[in-house]
């Protein structure tokens, strides 16, 4: 035990003093916020640019209402339309001219309202870009509003009543937790995504740090000197604990920052920040540690088996795979955190650090599920570290060609 401490100490200090540590600790959260929010902001930016739209009205009566409806949306800041007056002429030639305008970039798109649109409810949108789903659905709503208004007038409803009759529902979403109610306008979603990205990148980052550390010791032959002093298992555990300590330091710093922001925002009236509960903070740190030990042990084993970082790439892929898989399931679990699929996925030890944590962020799962995931992870960590230590013991003193997977399995068996 007293030989483990120098290794732990060395690993911890070397990591904490490194530039990577300082940068990722201070800038990491900013970076993650950037990655999460920038696409949204960019879309907002895009929205500022007007979308030039023409309406080809074959009914001859819907056009003013449709244009009015689009303008109203623009005035309300919801849409970004600029209605281009359509030129006169027969339908076929106007359509041809508008198509040419779209291709030439003079307008962005046009809507065709067929003569029978009031009966069939079928209209068409033509544009160069049709993947701007938000804009198109806004056009859809505006035209629909005009159409409904048109139909209601047709059955005799006074024009000034129409707005009152067709007023849209404003559904306010309030997140209920044991500690109270709080209006949520997507903040929980962003927070869940942020924290999960942080977990993902830190587990991957510290895992790679361990792997590269092992490879460095191997290539610089330090390992031979160390193993002549202490057993390989001391080096393995010292490394895992020391690097883990550095990761823990980072997470405690982040958790503290989050707690401070949480306390500060709770004091603000009408705060829209999602709630940061003690359970959330505790599980943030805990699932990092669990994930770190699970993946870190495997990364250490991979590092011991190879001679260079290039060789490590292919062997490290199966280790990184489940981590990526967890990110892939993000949407499914986020969408229905209580579904059977979500429960099962979040209990799988390799996915739990991300997915069980995600479920905790969006909706507190039953305590037994959290307990079970922790128990399963601890059992997996016990098994994997034991196996990894055996591979490590053989691997660190092996030089020469990269071992095949069956060879590594044999090391673990004979270790």
């Amino acid at each position, binding site marked *: 035990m007293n030989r483990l401490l120098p290794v732990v100490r060395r690993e911890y200090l*070397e990591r904490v003093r490194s530039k990577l540590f300082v940068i990722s600790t201070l800038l990491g959260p900013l970076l993650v916020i950037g990655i999460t929010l920038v696409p949204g902001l960019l879309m907002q930016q895009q929205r500022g640019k007007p979308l030039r739209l023409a309406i080809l009205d074959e009914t001859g009566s819907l056009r003013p209402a449709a244009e009015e409806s689009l303008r109203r949306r623009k005035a309300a800041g919801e849409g970004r339309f600029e209605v281009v007056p359509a030129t006169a002429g027969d339908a076929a030639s106007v359509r041809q001219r508008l198509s040419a305008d779209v291709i030439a970039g003079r307008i962005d798109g046009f809507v065709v309202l067929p003569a029978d649109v009031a009966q069939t409810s079928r209209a068409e949108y033509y544009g160069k870009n049709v993947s701007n789903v938000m804009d198109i659905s806004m056009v859809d709503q505006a035209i629909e509003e005009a159409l409904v208004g048109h139909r209601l007038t047709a059955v005799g409803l006074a024009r000034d009543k129409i707005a009152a009759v067709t007023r849209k529902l404003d559904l306010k979403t309030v997140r209920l937790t044991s500690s109270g109610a709080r209006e949520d306008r997507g903040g929980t979603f962003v927070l869940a995504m942020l924290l999960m990205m942080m977990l993902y990148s830190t587990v991957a980052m510290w895992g790679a740090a361990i792997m590269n550390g092992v490879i460095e010791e191997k290539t*610089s032959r330090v390992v*031979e000197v160390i193993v*002549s*002093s202490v057993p390989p298992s001391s080096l393995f555990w010292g490394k895992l604990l020391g690097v883990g300590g550095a990761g823990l330091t980072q997470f405690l710093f982040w958790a503290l920052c989050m707690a401070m922001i949480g306390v500060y925002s709770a004091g603000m009236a009408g705060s829209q920040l999602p709630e940061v509960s003690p359970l959330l903070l505790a599980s943030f740190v805990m699932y990092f540690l669990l994930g770190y030990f699970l993946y870190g042990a495997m990364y250490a084993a991979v590092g011991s088996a190879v001679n260079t970082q290039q060789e490590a790439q292919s062997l490290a892929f199966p280790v990184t795979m489940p981590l990526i898989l967890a990110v892939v399931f993000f949407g499914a679990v986020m969408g229905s955190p209580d579904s059977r699929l979500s429960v099962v996925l979040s209990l799988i030890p390799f996915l739990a650090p991300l997915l069980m944590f995600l479920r905790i962020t969006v909706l507190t799962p039953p305590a037994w599920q959290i307990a079970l995931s922790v128990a399963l992870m601890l059992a997996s960590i016990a098994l994997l570290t034991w196996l990894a230590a055996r591979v490590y013991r053989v691997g660190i003193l092996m030089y020469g060609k990269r071992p095949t997977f069956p060879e590594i399995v044999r090391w673990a068996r004979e270790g």
Partner: protein
Amino acid sequence: MPAVTDAAIRLLGVRKAYSGHVAVEALSLDIPRGGAFGLLGPNGAGKTTTLRMVMNILRPDQGTIEILGAPSGQETRDRVGYMPEERGLYPRMVLEEQLLFFAALKGVPRAEAARRLPPWLERMGLTSWRHNKLNELSKGMQQKAQFIATVLHDPEVLILDEPLSGLDPVGVNLMRDVFVDLRRQGKTLVLSSHQMETVERLCDSIALINRGRLVLEGTVAEVKSRHGKNTVVLAYEGDGAFLGALPGVLEVSDFGRYVEVRMADGADAQAILKAASERLRVTRFEVVEPSLHDIFVERVTAEAAA
């Protein structure tokens, strides 16, 4: 065979094979406590493999190894310092920090190691480099740093694999002085080398190994006397081509300014001098001990012929 307490390191019937080839075969060796022991042999003879097995880095396939009278364990490991052939220090770690770390691995508390370190840094000329990262040091300095890492915990036994390779002549002299000091303090030094001359003058006893097998062992004096004073150094003016054909002469090696004449056992050096002085103008004549190098070459070629 000496009593258990006499041996610093004892190997009994040790064998180690890698896939396909045998690196060490049936090696039994007693390295006495105190003094310097040279493990000699050409490249690939099995020296490094043997030392790695002694340090428990490799496990022998057969046989047993004892250090200081016990199988290798944490307690014995702490009393041994090992400098591997391929030096191993952290390239991006600060020198002082690094040396304290390696002492801590041997169970030396930080404060104690920090107290012992300055004299060593001074002696190795590294004092002004102690706050530098290792990869900022020259090869020779790195090697000296490695030596400090080997010796800072004040081990009873030092195992040094090719300790002088890569050093400049000044560095070699410095290390020799350090070895002499350590030997005087009663430490056991085990030096491996493929350059017999450099170790010959340092060691009290030696073992020669070739292709994983022990060729000969004993004190340097024993080994030499066993091979007799059978070499004559001769310098002369004239054509000495006839020397090789003289009775009792086994071999003549021409070094340009002089020749070495190796004689058969029992041959008379005076007879050679007489024959030479009759036909040549002899400027130098000396009966010398065979060098370890010659002994080794002789034994290895004899073995290959057998």
